[in-house]
């Protein structure tokens, strides 16, 4: 992590700690829980797209694998939730390898369709063979660790945002390391990266796995929080939603993934008063924000701050 990131991180932790105290309503906390779950998936996709330059329309597939594997293992095989969550991430990582090896040779739109196809296949598998079929299944155990079970929304809020913080630290460390530099290099020029001796293919696969693991962690948490899952939560629609979060927040900055996730999760809640029109208003807001904040919210904010600072320096 860099200095600027540390400061932002401090503010971030402060906000997480403060929100439950301020809001005092589990409704807002519930929105927060879902925003956190989405943020986990979005951070993974942001690294994959913004730093490794690979697009994925299949994140819902990994999200679904995480949810289903963790739910089934803990419900039907009686494994402790923590163990089933970890196993779910392992399964997602293995599936990611199988997909990544052939798929990452593809570029642009072709990669998009390959990942989209993967996501749809997972969705069909869950629909056809998943426990409960299209109707889904319930009674999934709550998250528990060392004999203490979390059932309250506030508990989940802290758990999930705590994990977001951990994932964020890991990811920020990663992108400011040798590996992160290599990823950005690959994004800029694959030709030169090869000539510099970077393991282009290996790095791409690793990042793809990382994004899959984040998504599966989010999926598992979702399942244990909501305790009922059905395939419809893991359709292409979700993949596109996550993509939207990353783009709206700003693809070139990891904080953008979190901001994007929060904005896209909260927006429909704010639009409730529009009732029938909410879809229309939602679409319009998306279109306009994409058109006017092209680089994404966070990078634009960063630029503004830099400009202000520059002005301050000039004045002195």
């Amino acid at each position, binding site marked *: 992590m860099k200095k600027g990131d540390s400061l932002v991180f401090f503010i971030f932790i402060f906000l997480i700690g403060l929100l439950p105290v301020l809001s005092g309503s589990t409704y807002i906390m519930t929105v927060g829980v879902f925003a956190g779950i989405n943020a986990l998936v979005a951070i993974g996709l942001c690294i994959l797209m913004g730093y490794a330059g690979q697009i994925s329309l299949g994140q819902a597939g990994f999200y679904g694998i995480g949810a289903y594997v963790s739910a089934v293992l803990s419900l039907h095989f009686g494994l402790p939730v923590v163990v089933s969550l970890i196993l779910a991430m392992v399964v997602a990582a293995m599936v990611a390898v199988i997909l990544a090896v052939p798929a990452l040779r593809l570029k642009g739109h072709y990669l998009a369709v390959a990942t989209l196809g993967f996501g749809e296949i997972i969705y069909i598998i869950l629909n056809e063979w998943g426990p409960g079929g299209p*109707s889904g299944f319930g009674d999934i155990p709550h998250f528990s660790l060392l004999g203490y079970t979390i059932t309250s*929304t506030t508990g989940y809020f802290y758990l999930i945002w705590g994990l977001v913080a951990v994932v964020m630290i890991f990811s920020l460390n990663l992108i400011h390391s040798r590996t992160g530099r290599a990823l950005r290099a690959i994004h800029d020029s694959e030709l030169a990266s090869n000539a510099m001796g970077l393991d282009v293919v290996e790095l791409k696969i690793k990042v793809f796995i990382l994004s899959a693991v984040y998504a599966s962690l989010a999926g598992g948490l979702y399942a244990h929080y909501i305790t*009922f899952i059905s395939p419809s939560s893991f359709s292409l629609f979700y993949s596109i939603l996550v993509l939207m979060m990353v783009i709206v927040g700003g693809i070139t900055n990891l904080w953008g993934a979190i901001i994007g996730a929060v904005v896209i999760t909260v927006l*429909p809640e704010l639009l*409730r008063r529009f009732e029938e029109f*909410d879809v229309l208003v939602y679409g319009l807001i998306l279109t306009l924000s994409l058109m006017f904040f092209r680089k994404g919210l966070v990078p634009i904010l960063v630029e503004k701050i830099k400009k202000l600072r520059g002005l301050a320096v000039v004045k002195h």
Partner: protein
Amino acid sequence: MKKVRKNFLVVCVVVLSIFLMFVNAYAKEPYKIGALFAVTGAASFLGEPEKNTAIMLQEQINKDGGINGHPLEIIIEDTKSDETQAVLSAKKLLEKDNVLVIIGPSTTGESMALVPIMNNAKTPLISCAAGAPITQPVKERYWIFKTPQYDLSAVEAIYTYMKNKGIDKVGIITISTGFGDAGKKALHEMAPKYGITIVSDERYGPKDSDMTTQLTKIKASGAQAVINWSVGPGQVIVTKNWQALKMGIPLYQSHGWGSKKNIELAGKAAEGVIAPLGRLVVWDKIPDKHPQKALLKKYTQDYEARYKSEPGTFGGHAYDSIMMVAEALKKAGPDKKMIRDYLETKIQKWPGTGGIFNMSPGDHCGLDKDAFEMVVVNNGDWEILK
């Protein structure tokens, strides 16, 4: 000059607020209930009439003086046919609006996702979805009720009718959503009891445009009848394909078929299609002395006058739920526990749109297969089969 105008405005506002306060003091505090319907998304065919019904009933009840003088306020939220949204909306209703009861949601999945939340919040939920697990096991569903008939009941109605016609081999075709899946499971579960074998089990997606292939397979499997379990455009396309293929075996639809709109869309192809339907859609064809007749007539006519379309079976689920709650509020007062107890013990021989309800501590739905009539399409209209 400007100042004067400003002062005048201030005075106006003050007077108006005092006036409003008095008005408020006259009317009693409203009873707030929440409603979660899938107004948009994949299950909007359910949510739309349910929402319309809720708005209409709220108006009617308040026009008649509310409940014990308290106006009824139904706060409707759209769940977008999605479990996550259902949970969020339920939390909003419980926390922000402090509702006494929640009506809905429209689908089984959404209802299931709300079970732990409602049990935690100790607030009654009257689901408008059909799935059996919503209210079973009753012990773990202390606060949960539902008004739609069980899918099993609809299946039993079809199988009973088939038995009489001497059909014992059927091919089924279901939509690959929660609705079709529930039907598929019920069809399989009940088949042995009626000595019926399912010789072909096909599926299609909610947005598929042609089901000829699946029907051809069913035809080749030697089935004596086709049962299609779906809602939305799928059932119309199946009907059209069934006619185009000249399959020579009867087509049965689920209770989702119960809308004149489907006959309109399928045109001539709909002739002869049989389905188990609640009495709501055939209210004009049941005898006058039937206990449901009067309310069905009033509901349907009011709805049609207001929305220029029919309420269909699904709007009826919302009607039943809201009327039950209104009665419970009237008799038991605005207390969550009292409302729950009233629903469980006092809804007896209670005529609704879905049938005659008999709730009990062992059954939080209270309907059986007698809630359905077998109905055939004849000359573009419904006809009850005997």
